[in-house]
């Protein structure tokens, strides 16, 4: 069984996290074998996927800046989304070769991980036909956006745990006008530590993807990058 190192990294800036993913992915593409599941939260940021329309960001950058929200273009699939404190972001860096080379399957698998995890917390979530993401009734609780290069994955999922949902009002999430978002906090009436949800995701992730999960020291910032070699 392939080994996947997981770490909860706390709050990490968007650009920094993108960098981190890129380095982990690079190692894999260059023949490394260490796969990772990076779990973290971002400071407030709006990200534009490859299919984003600028009209889906409802405010100009100055306004957003005054609200403390950064804007980033990214190379993930999908449209516009919001990340911020209280949202658990997962970035699996996996090599889908040779046996899982199917993007649709990958998305469904990510959804499966979240659906199963949510059920452990008493939240019954599911899929919406034709739409990617995880939904509770008509409301979206998690979004997906993925980038692939030589079947190595970057980006991933964003699960609203205690997210300030009003921030989604700044955008048209995923290009779906009027789509409501929800969070575990709203559904359960209590705040959950992100770390607790992260810890619940890990074994489920291993189960769905057939990976042996092992803790791997949280990959460090670029300055101290050498630590990111293949320690297993």
């Amino acid at each position: 069984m392939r080994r996947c190192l997981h770490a909860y990294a706390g709050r990490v800036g968007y650009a920094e996290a993108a960098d981190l993913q890129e380095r982990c992915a690079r190692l894999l593409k260059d023949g490394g074998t260490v796969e990772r599941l990076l779990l973290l939260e971002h400071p407030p940021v709006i990200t534009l996927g490859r299919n984003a329309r600028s009209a889906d960001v409802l405010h100009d950058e100055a306004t957003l800046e005054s609200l403390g929200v950064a804007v980033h273009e990214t190379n993930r699939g999908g449209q516009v989304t919001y990340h911020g404190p209280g949202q658990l972001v997962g970035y699996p860096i996996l090599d889908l070769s040779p046996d899982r080379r199917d993007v649709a399957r990958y998305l469904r698998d990510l959804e499966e991980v979240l659906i199963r995890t949510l059920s452990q917390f008493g939240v019954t979530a599911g899929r919406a036909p034709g739409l990617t993401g995880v939904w509770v009734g008509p409301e979206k609780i998690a979004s997906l956006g993925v980038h692939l290069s030589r079947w190595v994955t970057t980006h991933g999922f964003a699960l609203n745990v205690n997210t300030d949902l009003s921030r989604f009002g700044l955008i048209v999430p995923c290009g779906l006008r009027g789509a409501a978002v929800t969070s575990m906090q709203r559904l359960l009436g209590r705040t959950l530590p992100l770390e607790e949800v992260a810890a619940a995701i890990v074994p489920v992730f291993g189960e769905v993807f057939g990976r042996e999960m092992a803790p791997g020291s949280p990959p460090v910032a670029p300055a101290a990058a050498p630590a990111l070699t293949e320690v297993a």
Partner: protein
Amino acid sequence: MRVDVIMPQMGESIAEGTLTRWLKKPGDKVARDEPIFEISTDKVDAEIPSPAAGTLVEIKVQEGQTVPINVVVAQIETEAGAAAGAGKAAAQPEGPKAAPEGAKAAPAAQAPAAKQPPAASAKPAVPAGGGSDGRDRAPQAEAPAAPSAPASWGPGPSASREIPKASSLAGSGSTVDDLRRVRSSPVVRKIAQEHHVDISRLAGTGVSGRVTKKDILAAIEGGAATAARAAGAPDRSASPAPAAAAASRSSAPAPVYAPGQRSSIVPMTAMRKKIAEHMIASRRTSAHVTTVFEVDMSRVMRLREEHKQAFQERHGVKLTPTPFMVRAAVEALKAFPEINASIEGDNVVYKKDMNIGIAVALDWGLIVPVLKHADDLSLSGIAKAVADLAERARTKKLSPDDVQGGTFTITNPGIFGSLFGTPIISQPQVAILGVGVIEKRVVVVQDAIGIRPMVFLALSFDHRLIDGAVADQFMAHIKATLEQGKFAEIV
């Protein structure tokens, strides 16, 4: 030489992709495996690496356009150096290239046709799945699995002995070098390049003889001498290995064992996976039970013997035991309509039409065309229809419609000598009849020992819907028809 760059298939269920961005423009040099464009499907964005080193000469699909998989999106002019290697393997793969070169005007429409080897478009790659869901698989089969045909005497989703990667290699004008290249990863090639090691001289220990990182590092450490010895054939111009690889890909899928390996790992093809899923799905859906009856075929064989010449003259087809089996099954289905039925949710759907799937053995496997409205046909009508279906199955002229809509299936493991099997039901049907070999056996006839042509008939039925008593009465009905039936209108 121009190399086509195609829209890749990003997953089994994905039929098209949207080209979101060109990372290179016409005139740009590209390295092999260097990302040259990006596509997006659903929520996924992917960089697509170049299939060859050279110059991007033509872009045929613009940013924002959505095209089906395997459509040519661009062409790369490879460096002249490739020509040397091309000569060897070019013979047959080069064939289909002529067309796209000639008419560049309508890329989207013509490209896929040109890409695919002729065999792929032949209809009968359709699976033998009598059920309506056979349709799902048919189009899938066309792209990657050129010479495939269903095999296995399981009824529904028939197996296919196809050759892994055959078309992908044949279609792209593979050179000897290409054949070798598929046996190493980009990292290995990079290392090889840095150390001036010729990968084609190394014997790989990886899957299917792939040269692994370990191999190349060992080779570098051991020096060129080791490398040459490992290859066993230092003279590259005579190198038999790639040629052999090419040959084996276009015929039987004999597993390739790397030196020192006791097993060979080959990913299942899309079709193989479908078949596996279908078989398991049937097992999971139906409560399979098999009941076996032994039938004395003396009467049928005698009738056949008496009438075969006249029958052949009059109808132009041979009189085989099959039409008798079909007729007996149809009569029994009329008496037990729950066997010509299916389950949908909490409902039983009885089928008025009796469409009998008939397994036809082929050189390359087995297919199950469907004899429509078998209950309306006379014995000679059945014989002619079966002969027609069998003939078209063998000449690959079945249409998708010919293998769909079955309500009951008859399979025939007996042609290989099997006494009886326990066939898997072709969903959404609820029963399948397996006919064993008809052979003379010693039996007790009226308290004496006699020699009779006997056959075992095995019925696998779905116990959710069909009780054992019903299944056995159905079988007794078939037995009675075969042993005592008049088959009045034979000639």
